[in-house]
């Protein structure tokens, strides 16, 4: 069984410049000026790693979707338009920066597995350095002021990705969702619910310090994952044949498909991961912790960027499903359910 509680961790920090109106209410020229100011800062020598600035106007849909799939950009920012927007990636993708989205700046960090504390350490540091050139909008009572007052305060959004297919299959997720909501967190399926992968995040404004918010999200997530693990054990105890059958069929489909949609692929990998974690399946070359990385690589823009001609490839190409099926066949070669 995997020791990690979170399948993936992500953090966002929203900040605004005190002397300017928020992006939706500001003049385009002022937003362009602010973006240039920030870009100049990113080129400076105060950073441990280099920032790479991306030209959003020259970016194709495949490239922006690829950034979203890697957790470097939020879907809302990728879909939005407007003057003065900017984007930059820190180092090899340890963090990223959205400029003039809903707020003037939003620092983002994403990594697989349990990594909330490490992400906070990094983003907190980057935030301090940005503050040496930006005067943040802040009020002692309200905290960091954001475009959406419901997000004012820490300006921090914590995202914990959880793998809970057994809770979803047995209809127990609603109870967990209502429980999380009662604790001030929201819960939503990440890829339309495929593979039982959900994301828990802090929902509304609270005055708590950032580390308490992180701990709170981690504690609630741990409770949900423990419930998932106990339901899996119950399924194995009370429905052993059906559980083996479910996992075995998933392995069979993964080994013999020639075209595969992304949601179906997520569901199959998820079943394989459960098989590994329960000790029911052998999948050479795959571990429970590497499953999420495999899912990431099966996303449409990842396939176009890594296996197709980026210049001609598009996200609607049927070739994507064929390549995905081939990758799965390779990954699941030799996989079987233990008897």
């Amino acid at each position, binding site marked *: 069984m995997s020791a990690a509680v979170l399948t993936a961790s992500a953090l966002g920090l929203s900040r605004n410049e005190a002397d300017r109106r928020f992006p939706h209410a500001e003049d385009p020229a002022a937003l362009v000026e602010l973006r240039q100011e920030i870009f100049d800062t990113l080129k400076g020598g105060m950073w441990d790693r280099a920032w790479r600035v991306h030209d959003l106007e020259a970016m194709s849909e495949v490239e922006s979707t690829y950034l979203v799939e890697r957790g470097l950009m939020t879907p809302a920012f990728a879909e939005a338009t407007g003057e003065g927007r900017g984007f930059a990636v820190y180092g090899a993708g340890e963090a990223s920066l959205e400029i003039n989205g809903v707020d003037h700046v939003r620092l983002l960090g994403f990594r697989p597995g349990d990594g909330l504390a490490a992400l906070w350490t990094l983003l907190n540091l980057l935030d301090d350095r940005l503050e040496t050139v930006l005067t943040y909008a802040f009020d002692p009572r309200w905290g960091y002021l954001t475009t959406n007052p419901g997000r004012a305060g820490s300006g921090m959004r914590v*995202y914990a990705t959880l793998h809970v297919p057994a809770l979803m299959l047995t209809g127990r997720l609603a109870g967990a969702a209502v429980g999380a909501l009662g604790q001030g967190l929201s819960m*939503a399926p990440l890829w339309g619910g495929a593979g039982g992968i959900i994301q828990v995040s802090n929902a509304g404004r609270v005055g708590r310090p950032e580390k308490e918010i992180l701990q709170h999200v981690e504690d609630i997530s741990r409770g949900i994952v423990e419930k998932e693990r106990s339901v899996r054990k119950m399924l194995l105890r009370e429905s052993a044949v059906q559980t083996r059958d479910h996992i075995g069929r998933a392995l069979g489909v993964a080994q013999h498909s020639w075209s595969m949609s992304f949601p179906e692929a997520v569901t199959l990998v998820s079943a394989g991961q459960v098989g590994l974690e329960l000790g029911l399946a052998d999948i050479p070359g795959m571990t429970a912790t590497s499953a999420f990385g495999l899912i990431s690589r099966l996303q449409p823009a990842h396939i176009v960027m890594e296996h197709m001609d980026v210049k001609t490839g598009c996200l609607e190409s049927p070739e994507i499903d064929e390549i995905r099926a081939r990758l799965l066949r390779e990954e699941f070669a030799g996989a079987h359910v233990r008897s």
Partner: protein
Amino acid sequence: MYIDESPDWNIENDGSVVCDLCGTEPATMHLLRVVDGVVSHTHLCPGCAESVAEENEGLALVLAVPSVLRHLGRSAPADETPPDPPEREERFCGVCGTTLTDLRESGMVGCINCYQVFIDYLQTSFETEGEPVEHLGKMPLRGPESDALKHEMMRLQRMLRELVECERFEEAAGVRDRLTELGQRLDGDPS
């Protein structure tokens, strides 16, 4: 890979704010369910949400989020007893032009001045039971000293409340003295 925070999360923004089930209590959560491919949205009060969660056998997918926009709408007394139209129109921010209606509809303010202009409305909207709303987390390194003092006082006030609740009165007295001292410093601080 982040959840797509689509407007569907606040789908009923212009509609009812009472619980879909009991029809009397204010709805504070939004459940999205997908059962056999059919999507349904339900707005529930906490009591009904618990009973729904217990009854949902075979539930395939669920999304549960509080609606900030709905919360804003619910908290606005103006929605229940319409104020004089001219007075309502007068409430706008002189810096960015955001009106109270804009804020209600979009849930967004246009600048930091809006936080002062709409302070009553925002305070009412974000009152939550049991959760401190005063910001006790990180603060800018380059802010004025008065901000740091206020921040420290809010932290101590929270500590004082917790100590009194735990009946640790001696420690509470120490915190109270420190608060008095900081209050005096703040009063004498020209910034």
